[in-house]
């Protein structure tokens, strides 16, 4: 089968050799890069959701100053390119942390690319998540939360038992979109030199001059990530929508 394929398509054997997982091939590097991408995307998405929940609650029930500051945050992040934000937050974040450490009398440290990438992309995701979750929380009927308050639940209990489960199915389409953005935004870290999938691909392609082979292979890896996670989000959404009458997508 394989021999027949190689005979009918002469370039394929060379491509397969380039992509093999053993050291002369670059497949292992690509997979390592892909794993790094997934880790960063997961971390950034989680951080973004946490920021988003607090941001949404702050925007809905915070004081006037909190609301204004949060809307500055979401507006700025959504208007400035991620690349610029990554550079700004990376430099500013390292600077601030090191100044803080110096105040405490510690020596300055080098922040790892992984932590910086997760932190920066998480802050960017947080702005979008704030808007998604705010819309979802707003569309939970007031009567439900009022009933919860009438039963004597604390605000935290109301949120955990009523608002959160009720808003989740409404927020999931937006959140799944955000997750896709997170996986693709990890590619931006290639520009600041973090060795995720895109940078590994470029190095492999540059040193073997087989640009199409590697970029197409990396494209296939990204596509697998997005298609598989789309399927997973579809399941989760179907599961959380079960209790809702007539709310089918």
């Amino acid at each position, binding site marked *: 089968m394989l021999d027949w394929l190689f005979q009918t398509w002469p370039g394929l054997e060379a491509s397969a050799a380039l992509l093999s997982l053993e050291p002369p091939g670059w497949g292992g590097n690509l997979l390592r890069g892909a794993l790094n991408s997934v880790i960063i995307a997961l971390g950034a998405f989680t951080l973004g959701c946490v920021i988003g929940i607090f941001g949404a609650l702050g925007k809905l029930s915070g*004081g*006037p*100053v909190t609301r*204004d*500051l949060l809307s500055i945050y979401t507006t*700025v992040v*959504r*208007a*400035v*390119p*991620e*690349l*610029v*934000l990554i*550079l*700004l937050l990376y*430099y*500013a974040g390292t600077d601030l942390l090191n100044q803080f450490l110096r105040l405490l009398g510690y020596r300055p440290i080098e922040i790892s690319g992984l932590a910086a990438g997760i932190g920066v992309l998480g802050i960017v995701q947080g702005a979008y998540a704030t808007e998604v979750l705010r819309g979802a929380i707003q569309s939970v009927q007031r009567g439900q939360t009022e009933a919860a308050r009438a039963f004597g639940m604390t605000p935290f209990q109301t949120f955990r038992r009523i608002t959160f489960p009720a808003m989740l199915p409404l927020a999931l389409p937006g959140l799944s979109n955000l997750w*896709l953005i997170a996986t*693709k*935004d*990890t*590619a*931006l870290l*290639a*520009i600041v030199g973090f060795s995720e999938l*895109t940078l590994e*691909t*470029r190095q492999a*392609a*540059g040193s073997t*001059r087989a*640009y*199409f082979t590697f*970029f*197409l292979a*990396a*494209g296939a890896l*990204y*596509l697998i990530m*997005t*298609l598989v996670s789309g399927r997973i989000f579809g399941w989760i959404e179907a599961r959380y929508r079960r209790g809702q009458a007539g709310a089918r997508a």
Partner: protein
Amino acid sequence: MIRDWVSPHRIGLLLVALGVVIWAAVSMRWDWIPRYAGLGLEGIWRTLWLLALSLLIGGALAVPLGLAQAAGPAFLALPARWFCTVIRGTPLLLQLWLIYFGLGSLFPQFPSIRQSELWPYLRQAWPYALLALSLSYAGYEGEVMRGAFKSVPQGQLEAGRAFGLSRFAVLRRIWLPQALARALPTLGGEAILQLKATPLVATITVIEIYAVASRVRQDTFIIYEPLLLLALIYMAIAGVIALGFRWLERRFTRGLG
């Protein structure tokens, strides 16, 4: 509206903001601006026309892509859907590098391309940047236009046909204008996302405004000031785009119920 702006906490915040601006103007370094002003303006100009052209080309490609998915036969709908899925499922940076490094290393191997009149352009980076940006926008907008075409009520199209309009006339006079009007709010948001994608072309040596800011950083070792000014410039452009689309929406969605 005005009263919103003069409430006490807003005045307080504005004073804080003013203080930050004054502090930035006095104690940060801005002396590099005159030296790089010309380069910066060229960069802004290049960003703007890359953005405008890619929006136009991508938008023009998105209409057939959306139409094929919404109403086309399977042999057109399937490839259109695959195109949109692939574009939306892979990072733009990867697409850009595939097109620039891949095509860029492929073209010189063909003497017929090297001798053609297009070669002087194909040796530069911006045609590849424009191609990648346009294809990416077409992929995202094809999906938006699919929904927009589907959301136009069927009865309107049938009424057009009943009046004896040809199928093309129905598309041109009824279907497309209404679909575009319905898609306008989304298109506005996507245009800002496209603006935010333009700095990626700096990685393939197109000198737009982001590349200029990077050069200032490398030349002078000033880190924050060029990046902050760059963020302000992008925010200003995004603001203009948002205002423009709001005007378009007011102008073209009047007739929609």
